[in-house]
């Protein structure tokens, strides 16, 4: 665990196109470093979530079918001696195809 920064540590507010609200910025900059960690849950839009959750959400549904590229899967298969059948079973299961692509089209009732 690293030590909390002391009051002698330089703080720097950087603004690119716009900066945080002046009042908020000054209040934060003047405040002594808090011992409290960012709250895990806060109300509304300000609640923090771990970056893992955000990246996970960003992966989308496609992650189920393609976590790594085919080239990487082949490399791992070679390294761990997986046969072509085992690769097909573990990494390219047929039932991962989107339902719309596998299901027969139904005729529209007239």
């Amino acid at each position: 665990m690293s030590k909390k920064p002391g009051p002698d540590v330089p703080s720097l507010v950087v603004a690119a196109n716009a900066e945080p609200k002046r009042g908020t910025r000054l209040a934060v900059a003047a405040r002594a470093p808090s011992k409290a960690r960012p709250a895990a849950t806060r109300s509304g839009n300000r609640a923090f979530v771990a970056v893992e959750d955000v990246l996970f959400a960003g992966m989308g549904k496609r992650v189920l079918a393609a976590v790594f590229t085919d080239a990487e899967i082949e490399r791992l298969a070679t390294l761990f001696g997986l046969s072509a059948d085992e690769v097909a079973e573990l990494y390219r299961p047929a039932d991962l195809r989107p339902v719309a692509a596998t299901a027969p089209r139904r005729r529209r009732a007239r």
Partner: protein
Amino acid sequence: MTHFRRDVLQFTQVLTARFNGGLIVLRVISADRLLVRARIYQAGVHVATVALRFDPRLRQAHISWFVVVMAGRGSTAAKHLLQNLLLIQRDCGIRRITLQAALSHGGYVWATHGFLPATNTKWQALAKRLAAKFTVLAANFAPAEVTAIERLLQAQDRLALRAIAAIATRHGSTTLGKHLLMGERWDGELDLSDEPSALIYFRRIGLIA
């Protein structure tokens, strides 16, 4: 900043590129190690907080704290911040990024970002826990699948983690690889000098398609 070869202002501008602003605290701790704490703002709203340690002499960086506000979920904020960090890491000559893969998704997410357990021994300790988890589930899978998965879980090489994370065989509403790794905790590292690991990471943080 000696290793970054630019001044503090440029360092913070790279860290906050594509964001509207940031409150940055930089502290040099023991020799050349740099502690960075940053609150990042977008349109005046605090969107993320990060805490990092740079050790340029060892060419190593450690991500110790990285959270974004709920509003950032589904946006590109997390990826943009990781891209900014990568620029700094590149300019500081960082070759290795370390972190602790934990929380609900971390054990799986960081594996899919190219991170591996720090040593083969640490992988083997993790593999024992995964094997215990898989023993309970094994009856749901074909004997050929069970044999292959058990072989991966007995592998000595830490790259087997990647082979486990990639398993796409369905288990319930998810994949077996994800199910096994969710909720696990392991010390991870990303070796940027290892081309496959770097490519996986670059793809995941949106630098390459």
